[in-house]
């Protein structure tokens, strides 16, 4: 199992650990509900160093990104980031990712899911027909997400960068907690506000790299002591993102789901100057109309929806499948997402979740849930 620069810290803090995407990761420290509330109401720190980072350099870097991602990266200026996805040849999703414009037309960073690093890297390399300089810096890059309404206030004393006024989906490179070459980005996966901090921290033999991770972690918890900042595990990361209706790769989107079906039409730019992979297929889908759609639902009767449970109509006919579900800590009710046939996908439509052979009533609701 691989480890992040913080794995030993999680273990020392008594976190419940488990393998995730090949990494030994913290699932929870004090309990998912407790950690969830800490992020929604205050501030929490996630180690997400398992995520992958690729650097693309050179005059053709933008062209490569435009050809393999659905969003329009030509709109990005220095210091701006965007949510996007790689489509495969059939119009499914290879991965969802963030594109960072470090230097317009010259240097970009792609941030991908940990479980897809190898697949994505091969995909990028395979499409690099015009000599873009590619670096997979995933193993050398540490990443902490500090999320919550009090996150930026706590972190501001640790840097000269004006993070209190950093706009959503923008970033600045600078010094943080005495560590140079840190990229601070006003992004996250919780809907609670805050930043994500990328920094050089390798599992290589260079001792100073581990020091970077230590310095940053210790400085954050020192700065947040009075505010009671907490470490947060992947369990609460999942409940937080689900309340916002954010897709999780492997659950809600995968190689067989199209961005249009997944509700990601807003990052699928059919009219951008350079066509992306399988654009014709997506275009056709749009013209003909999609047959199924990712929707949010909440349970009316008692039960908790889980990944892969069948979604049925009142007559018991299967109309779809649950992709994510949980008891929502903020709402105190069970919520989920799933694909259903478009005819059944209307708001407030009653659906039934097959929970261990019983049909439990739910209704389709707007996302975000919370």
């Amino acid at each position: 199992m691989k480890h992040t620069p913080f794995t030993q810290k999680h273990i020392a803090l008594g976190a419940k650990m488990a393998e995730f995407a090949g990494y030994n990761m913290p699932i929870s420290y004090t309990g998912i509900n407790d950690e969830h509330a800490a992020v929604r109401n205050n501030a929490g720190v996630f180690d997400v160093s398992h995520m992958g980072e690729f650097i693309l350099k050179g005059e053709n870097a933008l062209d490569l990104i435009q050809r393999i991602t659905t969003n329009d990266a030509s709109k990005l200026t220095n210091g701006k980031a965007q949510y996007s996805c790689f489509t495969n040849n059939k119009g499914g999703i290879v991965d969802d990712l963030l594109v960072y414009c470090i230097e317009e037309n010259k240097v970009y960073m792609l941030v991908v899911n940990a479980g897809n690093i190898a697949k994505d890297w091969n995909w990028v390399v395979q499409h690099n027909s015009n000599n873009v300089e590619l670096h997979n810096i995933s193993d050398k890059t540490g990443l902490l997400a500090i999320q919550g309404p009090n996150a930026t206030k706590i972190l501001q004393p640790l840097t000269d960068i004006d993070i209190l006024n950093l706009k959503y989906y923008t970033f600045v490179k600078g010094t943080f907690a005495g560590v140079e070459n840190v990229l601070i980005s006003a992004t996250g996966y919780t809907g609670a506000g805050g930043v994500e901090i990328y920094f050089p921290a390798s599992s290589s033999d260079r001792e100073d790299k581990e020091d970077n991770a230590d310095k940053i972690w210790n400085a954050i918890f020192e700065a947040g002591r009075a505010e009671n900042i907490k470490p947060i595990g992947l369990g609460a990361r999942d409940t937080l993102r689900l309340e916002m209706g954010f897709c999780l790769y492997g659950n809600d989107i995968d190689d067989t789901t199209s961005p249009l079906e997944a509700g990601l039409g807003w990052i699928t730019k059919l009219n951008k100057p350079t066509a992306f992979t399988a654009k014709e297929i997506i275009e056709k889908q749009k013209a003909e109309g999609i047959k199924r759609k990712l929707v949010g639902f909440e349970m009316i009767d008692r039960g908790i929806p889980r990944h892969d449970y069948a979604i049925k109509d009142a007559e018991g006919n299967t109309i779809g499948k649950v992709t994510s579900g949980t008891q929502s800590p903020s709402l105190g009710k069970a919520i989920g997402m799933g694909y259903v046939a478009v005819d059944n996908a209307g708001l407030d439509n009653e659906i039934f979740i097959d929970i261990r052979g019983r049909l439990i009533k739910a209704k389709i609701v707007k996302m975000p849930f919370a």
Partner: protein
Amino acid sequence: MNFPAELKYTKDHEWIKIIDDKTALIGITNYAQGELGDIVFVDVPTVGKTLNAEDVFGTVEAVKTVSDLFLPVEGKILEVNSALGNNPELVNSDPYGEGWMVKIEMNNAADLDNLLSAEAYEQLVS
């Protein structure tokens, strides 16, 4: 960790508490609730049914996981702890007390001999 001596245990982390020669309460152990984390729903669709030892009598749902609940001995499910309806977290806060799950009528008290003592269960999970 707490292992009340008056209870009997299963390798699946349920406990059974004898009330009289026929009836007993069943719940999950302190170890089990700790492993599951925040419990959000206890689902028992078997009230009124007679089940064999080791049959599934319900499920316990934590935020992230679902686990089956196994009946320690043969018997009839008489009632479910209604307090868990609004407060499933009682299983976390008081697994051997307020967090009990079902009351059963045992068919054969001799079945209890097949279960683990507090000492044997403690060895299993330590």
